[in-house]
C-alpha cells in the first residue's frame, strides 16, 4: 500500500526566499548605509545619524520635500473629487455604454506611465502652460482618477441607486441625497482611495520628471538629479524616510477603511473582496 507522504515544498519555499531577498536586500542596503558614518557606499564602518543631520540642513532637499507633499495633497484632493463624481455618474449609465465608458476610465492604470508623461508634457507645452508644480498636479490627477473611480465604484456596486432613491423618497433633494447618504456611506472607500493616491503621487518619479518646472522640483526628481552629481549618503537617508512614509500610508490605506466600517477598501481590490 502506497503511503502518501506530505513532502515539504522545498523548491517553492526556496524560490520565495530568493524572490524576497532579491526584492528587499537592495532596499535594506539603502537603509543600512543611510546609517553609515563614512561616505562610502560599499563598506559599513560605523553607526551614525550624520546623513540625517545633513538632510535636515539641506534647504534644496527640504524645499523639494515640501513641494512633493503639496503636489500629493493637491492631486489627492483633485482626484478624489473628480473620481467620485465620475463613479457616481457611471453608476447611472447602464448596459454596454456604461461598460465601455467604465473600461475607458481604467486605461490610465495600464497605460505605460512614460507615455502618459510624454503626452502630458506635449499637451502642456502645446497649449503654452508653463511647467511648474501645477502642471505636475494636473498630470498626477489625470493618472490618479482611475484609482479613485475603481475603489469608489467597488463600494457603490449595486446598492447606490436604490439607496439614493430611498433618500429622495424620504425627502432629500438629489444634492442632499449625495451629501447625507451617499458620501457618508462612501467615507471608508474615500479614505482608502485618498491614502493610496497620496502614497502613489508622493513618490512618483516618471510623471513628475516630465511635467515639473525647475524650482522647486518634487523630491524624486530632485534625488534623481542630485545622484548625477555624485551619490551622497544623504540620498540614502531621504530614501529610507520616503520608504517608511510610503509604507505607513499604504498600510493605513489598507487597514483604516476596515476599522472604520465594513465595505470595500483598497484591500478588497487586492484580496478580491473576500471578507
Amino acid at each position, binding site marked *: 500500500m502506497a503511503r502518501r507522504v506530505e513532502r515539504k515544498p522545498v523548491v517553492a519555499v526556496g524560490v520565495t526566499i530568493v524572490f524576497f531577498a532579491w526584492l528587499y536586500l537592495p532596499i535594506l542596503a539603502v537603509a543600512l548605509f543611510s546609517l553609515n558614518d563614512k561616505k562610502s557606499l560599499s563598506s559599513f564602518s560605523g553607526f551614525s545619524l550624520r546623513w540625517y543631520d545633513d538632510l535636515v540642513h539641506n534647504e534644496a532637499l527640504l524645499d523639494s520635500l515640501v513641494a512633493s507633499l503639496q503636489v500629493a495633497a493637491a492631486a489627492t484632493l483633485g482626484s478624489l473629487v473628480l473620481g467620485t463624481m465620475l463613479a457616481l455618474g457611471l453608476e447611472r449609465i447602464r448596459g454596454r455604454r456604461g461598460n465601455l465608458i467604465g473600461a475607458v476610465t481604467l486605461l490610465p492604470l495600464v497605460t505605460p506611465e512614460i507615455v502618459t508623461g510624454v503626452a502630458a508634457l506635449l499637451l502642456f507645452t502645446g497649449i503654452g502652460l508653463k511647467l511648474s508644480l501645477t502642471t505636475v498636479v494636473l498630470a498626477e490627477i489625470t493618472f490618479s482618477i482611475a484609482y479613485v473611480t475603481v475603489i469608489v465604484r467597488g463600494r457603490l456596486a449595486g446598492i447606490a441607486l436604490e439607496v439614493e432613491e430611498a433618500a429622495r423618497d424620504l425627502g432629500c433633494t438629489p444634492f442632499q441625497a449625495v451629501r447625507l447618504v451617499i458620501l457618508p*456611506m462612501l*467615507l471608508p472607500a474615500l479614505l482608502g482611495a485618498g491614502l493610496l493616491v497620496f502614497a502613489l503621487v508622493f513618490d512618483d518619479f516618471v510623471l513628475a520628471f516630465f511635467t515639473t518646472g525647475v524650482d522647486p522640483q518634487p523630491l524624486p526628481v530632485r534625488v534623481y538629479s542630485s545622484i548625477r552629481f555624485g551619490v551622497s549618503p544623504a540620498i540614502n537617508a531621504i530614501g529610507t524616510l520616503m520608504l517608511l512614509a510610503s509604507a505607513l500610508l499604504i498600510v493605513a490605506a489598507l487597514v483604516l477603511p476596515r476599522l472604520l466600517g465594513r465595505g470595500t477598501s483598497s484591500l478588497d481590490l487586492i484580496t478580491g473582496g473576500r471578507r
Partner: protein
Amino acid sequence: MSSAPTTNPSVTLRGLTKRFGGTTVVDHLDLDIESGEFFSLLGPSGCGKTTTLRMIAGFSDPTEGTILVGGEDVTSTPPHKRDVNTVFQSYALFEHLDVRRNVGFGLRRKGVDRSSIDKRVAEMLELVELGDRAKDKPSRLSGGQRQRVALARALINQPKVLLLDEPLAALDLKLRRAMQAELKSIQREVGITFLFVTHDQDEALSMSDRVAIMCDGVVEQCGTPEDVYERPTSVFAAGFIGTSNLMNGLWSDGCVSVSPTVSIPAPGHQGSADGDPVSVTVRPEKIWLTEHTPGMFRLPGTIVETSYHGATTQYVVSVGPDLTLTVLEQNLPRMRAEDRWSPGDRVEAGWLPEHTVVLR
C-alpha cells in the same frame, strides 16, 4: 368585476404609460385606489409592476398619463415632494446610520423637532417590534429585522400611500408567512393605504382588500380577492391565479361544447352568439367526486392520477379524449387512506352550474 367607484381616492392613475425605447412596459393603466385600502398589484415577473411603482414614487417619468395622489396631480412633482413612501425590495437601508436614525430620517428632513422625532421613532420601533435594536447598525440585523426597519422608516412619515415592492420576496417561506400576517395587522392599525406589489398569488389573495392582475403592462382584472378568484374575466387572470381547468370550446345554445361528447352548461353567461369560440373554466375545489347534489352538472370519467398533498388530495380525472379535469379534495377527518380514489377508478365529476365560468 372592474374597480369600484372611488369615493376617497388615495392614488388615481389615468392612462399611465411607460415606454423604454420602442417597448411599452406599462400600457395605459387606469387604477383607482381608495384611502386606507390594502391594494395589490399581482403579476408575473417583468409585467411592469416595479415600473408602475417607480412612476408613482417619482423615480421614473411617465411617457404618457397622469398620476394623482390624494386627488392632487403629482405627475411632474419630484420624489422628495410627493406624499408617498416606498419600501424597497433590497430595503435600501442607510448602513452608516443606526436603526433609530434610519427610521427618523424622513422626519428630520421635514424639520420635525428632535423630541417629537425621538418619541415617534420609539413608537414606530415598538410597532415593528424592534424597540431593543434602536442603536444597532443595520448590518447587525437579520433579514426580517432589516425588512421591519425599512417598513418603519417609510411608515413613520404617514404618507398618503405606502408603496411596497415585493417586500417579502427575500425572506424564507416561514418568515414570509409570519410577515404577511404582521404587515396586514400593521396596515389595519395605521390605516395607511398600501400599494403592494407581488408575484405571489397566495400573498395577494390573503392580504389584499383588492387585487389588480397585471400582464404585459395591462391590468387584466381588478377586484376583491374573491372576485378575481371566483369570477375571473380573462383567460390570463383565470390561469395566473390557482389551477383553473381551462377548456376551449364553442358557444352553442347556453352550453360550451369542449369536445364532440362533452358540452358544459353555463346558464349565467350572456353576450356570446352561437358558434363563438369561448373558454370555460371551473376551479378544482368546486368539483365533487362523491356526495353530488341534485342541481349538479355531472361528467363521467376515470381517475388517471392521484397525489396526496397533506391537507388535500389532488386527482386528475380523464373525462374524454384529450380532456382532463384537476380535482382538489379536502382530506376530511372522517376520511381514511383507503377512501381515496386510485388510478383506474371510475368516477363522476360534478359541480354546480354557477361555478362554471365562461371567458371570451
